[in-house]
């Protein structure tokens, strides 16, 4: 039972280790999906939002985490 709990915890940590990063990624994926399926813009616009959004989320997440670690 304890082992199963540890396995579940490890799996959760694998994908949701940093809540803000996870929220950022899921928001970008949702937005890109909405744009790609909306039809009003070419699907590649959704692709660009996905790609650039992930880059922005990554840099923002590193900067925010660094600030959190530095707070005494």
């Amino acid at each position: 039972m304890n082992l199963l709990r540890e396995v579940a915890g490890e799996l959760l940590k694998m994908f949701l280790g940093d809540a803000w990063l996870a929220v950022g990624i899921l928001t970008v994926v949702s937005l890109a999906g909405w744009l790609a399926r909306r039809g009003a813009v070419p699907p590649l616009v959704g692709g660009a939002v996905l790609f650039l959004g992930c880059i922005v989320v990554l840099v923002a997440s590193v900067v925010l985490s660094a600030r959190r670690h530095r707070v005494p």
Partner: protein
Amino acid sequence: MISLTTAAPAISAAFLASLVEVVEAFTIVLAAGTLRGWRAAIAGTAVAVAVLALIVVALGPVLDQVPLHRLKLVIGTLLLLFGMGWLRKAALRAAGIVPLHDENASFAAQAASLSGVATPRRAGFDWLGGVIAFKAVLLEGLEVVFIVIAVGAGRGLLLPASLGALAACIVVLAIGAIVHRPLARVPENTLKFAVGVILSAFGVFWTGEGLGIAWPGEDLMILPFGAAFLFAGLRATQLVRPSASVLTP
């Protein structure tokens, strides 16, 4: 027939990621083997490897039944969560914000916790040592299993990706058997950084395909995606490094 060009990214991603995880598992197995006896440590490791192999073998055919675009969307998103998580942590470690993982310290901590427990009889099977080795290999191996499935499923690359992971195990075990101490000189953070870049690039590509986006140049788009994540990771490291100077992950 799978071409090397198709299989190479899957094999290298599985190999590099496995190298990191196997080194961590090896440290704990080494502590268990040295302090509690090798019979139990090897048995625990073997059982965990068998469980992990079973998960890959069982999940592979199941995933082949899932519609491809849905599979790509789910696995692509999971790759983004996992790969960008590794990249974020590697950037923070490279910048000195989070301490680097130290295999020698990990070995010492494991040894200290094991030495407090009664020593087993010489001839008997030491269950504690076996369970510790089993847990270490199983927990570290879960990430390897995910990467093998993520880069291999849906494209018929499960076997090449598994071989990449297996090769990493053989390399670490061979070096470990020779040096017989924690592999502290493996550039773990650089490897994590590289794997984070590769998996994030795969993640964007697969998620996009799952959303119905036809990338220009198809698979070749993974290269510029990887280059962009590499640049962003290095730039982020530089931004948060207390005294920004050299760009090395």
